């Protein structure tokens, strides 16, 4: 586990050194939410209607944004082959690093959702459900994004094809996520959609590490 800690600490240090990484998700998220109201002529009730969609679009972006830099730089500077040779199984590494990336890109959305609720007139009463849904959803999206990143890291056409196949997997997450948020906003019970989100997360946690590790090995063999 010492090795796992070292890996996580390394990624966090690098994220911190690239100064922007810390500030950007927050600014990005506010700007992102600002975009939609700017586009429309915003009456509060309209905003409240689209708020779920907006938040979840932002979640998708944050999940996928910067994901390709997740393994790309390691591939290019040769750290990836070193990590592949390390005794620590690649599956564990994949899980740990996806989580570290999520800490920087996904978690801020969850933490900031109250602020966003205020900006978009989203009913404060439904906040907990929204945040919880985001917690589940962003994690799943990060795992999916990591698979895509691992596939594209060596820029092989096969990987590209597969990436195009992976992206649509995000759709169900978006649908159910936005649905749960909308239901909560209308005062209905969102637990159904939330259960589905949770199921997808569990599925992702079980399967994604193997997919990621396998994809990385393929990329290295090229």
């Amino acid at each position, binding site marked *: 586990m010492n090795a796992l800690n070292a890996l996580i600490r390394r990624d966090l240090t690098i994220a911190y050194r690239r100064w922007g990484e810390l500030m950007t998700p927050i600014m990005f998220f506010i700007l992102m939410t600002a975009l939609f*109201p700017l586009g429309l002529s915003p009456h509060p009730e309209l905003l409240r209607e689209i708020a779920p969609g907006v938040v979840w679009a932002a979640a998708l972006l944050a999940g996928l944004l910067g994901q390709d830099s997740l393994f790309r730089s390691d591939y290019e500077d040769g750290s990836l082959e070193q990590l592949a040779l390390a005794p620590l199984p690649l599956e564990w590494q994949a899980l740990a690093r996806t989580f570290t990336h999520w800490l920087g890109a996904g978690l801020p959305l969850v933490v900031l959702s109250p602020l966003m609720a205020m900006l978009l007139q989203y009913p404060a009463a439904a906040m907990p459900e929204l945040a919880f849904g985001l917690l589940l959803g962003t994690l799943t999206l990060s795992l999916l994004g990591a698979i895509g990143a691992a596939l594209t890291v060596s820029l092989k056409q096969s990987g590209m094809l597969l990436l195009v196949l992976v992206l649509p997997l995000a759709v169900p997450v978006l649908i159910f996520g936005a649905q749960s948020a909308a239901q909560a906003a209308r005062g209905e019970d969102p637990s159904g959609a939330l259960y589905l989100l949770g199921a997808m997360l569990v599925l992702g946690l079980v399967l994604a590490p193997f997919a990621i590790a396998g994809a990385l090995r393929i990329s290295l063999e090229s």
Partner: protein
Amino acid sequence: MNISWTWFHRLASPPYFFRLAGRLAPWFGWLSLVCIVAGLYGGLWYAPPDYQQGDGFRIIYIHVPSAYLSMMGYTLLAVSAGIGLVWRMKMAHAVAAAVAPLGASFTFLALVTGSLWGKPMWGAYWAWDARLTSELILLFQYFGFIALRRAFEDPRSGEKAAAVLALVGLVDVPVIHYSVVWWNSLHQGSTVFVGEGSDIATSMLVPLLIMIAGFTAFFAACLLKRIQLEVLERESGAAWVRELLEDA
């Protein structure tokens, strides 16, 4: 003409600028103190309540000065950064670096006071109104400038890159100012400085003008101090800094 040029070059020399700033800062400081105290008295006590907004309008005495400074600040930042970029003037970069946090704080102030004003007037702390949004954007431009400067390992490259960004971002300032004209905005348009005299009572106007003067003086005082700091950071190790330390 050449007189002004020599003056320009003297300004460009760090030690001269450092001493000048040190001498000027206190004056601006005292001036701002006097003006702000007078403005506070005029605004909070002397001026009568607004006929429709009641006493709520008194926020204007901090909202408008800070809002106007937020824009002036960015203009100053962009212009000095541009000078630093074109004429390779160290001092200009120092000025830009010094303005950024100051301007950001006043932008923040304009946003907070504005939204505190908005609640009683419009019934909401925030609305995605053109001016409000563009002011928020301005805050992020300040952040972007600072973030980009720090992102570079080599500070010299960082300040150049940030200068390019600042120049490009200058377009937002007129957008903010004319936003109330271009879009049908919640926010009221130019009420203070409209062409043929202003349409608000002098008893309200005079304190506002005093406050604007006070805030500007305050801005100048802080700016000079920050510039001194920046210069010291850059020039530490230079001969004149040593002399300075001997004297002090």
